[in-house]
């Protein structure tokens, strides 16, 4: 009985499939375009994963823009930051006929195919924070933090100033295959060739996989392996927070109980809320980040403009940004959201994200 009914059910699915094959073309062309009917645009933001504090202000930026520009806004993130966890979500958004997808890509290339589908349906794809490195053609525009070529030097300069431009230091990164991290580290390497930094020696680059446990162990190992270590640079917030906790525990931060020859200076990239405690108690002197919120609203402005005004986004195009600004796409189709902000004791309490 059940066997029969289940075979019937499967058969029905197959049958419907065969019938619908013929109507494929019509369904594509009838994809409603909200712009024509004058309805509100549908914008969806897909962060790398839910619960990631960095994407909160970014989402807030988009939400703020939604009030200014009057579009429907939703956030839908995957539970984990795996390479393909965003893929089914993008498929769902295509089916939901959204107009703009703002995506913080988990993978520079695993989403290529599905993003092409989205673009084919007339959806504007804006990447934020993490671009599709070397696969830029699969999205319309990228809104990136700050010029990658500026982040590397700025970080080195920040650490250099703290450690007096001399001594050994190490980098604690996220994963070996994170494009942003690798781009920044590459720029750091070039920066180090500047004679100004000639006395700074990068002893090792290690990877904490953005896991607290692994990052802590790597940080502890760095301190064991390099007794003369004077600085650690962690351009990822999980790594930086874990490293700060390890440093606090060890008391080897500048001014700490066990600090030898000036202690270990720690800096990197993070949202301010995650590190307020360590700035207050002196474990970290200063660290940097751009404004994710500005990035969010800029992405929203670009995406909606491209959709409603039918602007073709290509290098050199000028678009209206938030608050009457004008931004111009560079040769990779990327817009930078703004400069790095350096957070320290003096200003950190003014920020809340």
């Amino acid at each position: 009985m059940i066997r029969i009914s289940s075979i019937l059910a499967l058969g029905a699915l197959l049958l419907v499939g065969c019938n619908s094959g013929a109507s494929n073309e019509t369904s594509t062309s009838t994809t409603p375009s909200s712009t024509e009917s004058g309805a509100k645009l549908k914008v969806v933001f897909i962060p790398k994963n839910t619960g990631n504090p960095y994407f909160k202000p970014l989402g807030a930026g988009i939400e703020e823009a939604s009030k200014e520009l009057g579009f429907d806004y939703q956030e839908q993130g995957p539970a984990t930051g795996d390479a393909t966890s965003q893929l089914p979500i993008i498929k769902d958004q295509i089916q939901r006929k959204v107009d703009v997808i703002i995506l913080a890509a988990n993978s520079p290339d695993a989403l290529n195919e599905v993003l092409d589908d989205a673009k084919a349906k007339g959806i504007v794809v804006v990447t934020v924070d993490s671009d599709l490195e070397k696969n830029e053609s699969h999205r319309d525009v990228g809104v990136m933090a700050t010029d990658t070529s500026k982040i590397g030097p700025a970080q080195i300069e920040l650490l250099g100033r703290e450690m007096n431009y001399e001594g050994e230091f190490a980098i604690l990164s996220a994963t070996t295959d994170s494009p942003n991290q690798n781009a920044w580290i590459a720029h750091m390497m070039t920066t180090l060739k500047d004679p100004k930094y000639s006395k700074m020696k990068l002893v090792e680059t290690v990877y904490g996989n953005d896991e607290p446990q692994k990052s802590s162990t790597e940080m502890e190992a760095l301190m064991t392996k390099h007794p003369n270590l004077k600085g650690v640079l962690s351009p990822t917030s999980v790594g930086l927070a874990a490293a700060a906790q390890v440093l606090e525990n060890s008391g080897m931060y500048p001014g700490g109980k066990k600090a030898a020859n000036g202690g270990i200076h720690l800096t990197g990239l993070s949202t301010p809320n995650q590190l307020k405690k360590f700035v207050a108690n002196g474990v970290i002197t200063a660290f940097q980040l751009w404004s994710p919120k500005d990035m969010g609203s800029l992405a929203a402005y670009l995406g909606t403009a491209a959709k409603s005004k039918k602007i073709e986004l290509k290098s050199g195009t000028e678009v209206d940004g938030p608050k009457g600004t004008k931004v111009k796409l560079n040769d990779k189709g990327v817009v930078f959201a703004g400069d790095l902000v350096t957070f320290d004791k003096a200003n950190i309490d003014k920020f809340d994200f």
Partner: protein
Amino acid sequence: MKGKREIGLLVVLVVLIAACSFAKPIFLDPRNINSILLWMPLLLVAAVGQFPVIVARGIDISTGSIVGLSAISVGLLVKASPTIPVPMLFIAGGMVGLILGCLNGLIIAFGKVPAVVATIGTLTAFRGLTFVVSKGDQIDSTAIPQSLTSLANQGINIGNVTISWLLFIGFVLAILAFFASNRLQFYRNIFAFGSNPDAAFLRGISPKTVELICYCASGSLAGVAGTMYLARFGFANPGSAGQGFELIVIAAVAIGGVKITGGSGSIVGVFLGCALLSCINVALTVLGIDADWQLLVYGATILIALIIDSVSQRRKATA
């Protein structure tokens, strides 16, 4: 007969440490030893909880999610009332774990759902709950009081080696579990149940009670491990806190010589299993193994440890 397996494990541990320190003398540097000692407490506490479950022929795969949910809940609690005394935080973590473990126990003992299935189900369900409870927000370091995080850096100093209070708590719990497993009637009932469940029932041991309490114990110790997580890392993210931890815990218990089919094993073995895994994990970093090769080496080491154990067990059986 008893204890031989533990001695074998101890030998493996010593050989591993010797090999590592031969390859990299700093492996024996006090700082590195501290790093290993900091790896242990969470693992040890969760493994001591997993132990009775496996002895009773079950398995608790939801451990990682319980650690996460407990860490987040305790974080929310301490955020709401920062003056709460530290022991209360451990009790709170234990309570959260107890409730979750109890739920597992009810599903398994009364719902008759196989343990693997039930806890795979709650692994995802509890992780989902963690997001719901935290509204997706991370517990930032600012919220965690110094009095809690200092448990990871202060403790009993022996030269430059520090037995952190966290590890101390872990030791105390393990020693309590050691005595309980030998001297408590109820704990002996767990062994009897694991050795022969039908016979245990006929001897008046209630299988439902045994299973329920095993999962409650596993849950509450995972909950305590959740508070330890906060103390050790100073923050907790609903997505990453405890993620994948269950497999490390189960591996530690299995390497510790606890029969995966139930009925036999010892807390001493579990302790050595935890020590071995902690050493391996720290060794991967300190020996400077290329980041891309670490997972491979880790997998190979576990496999080799299992094979060595199985071969030595068979030798003993034929001898």
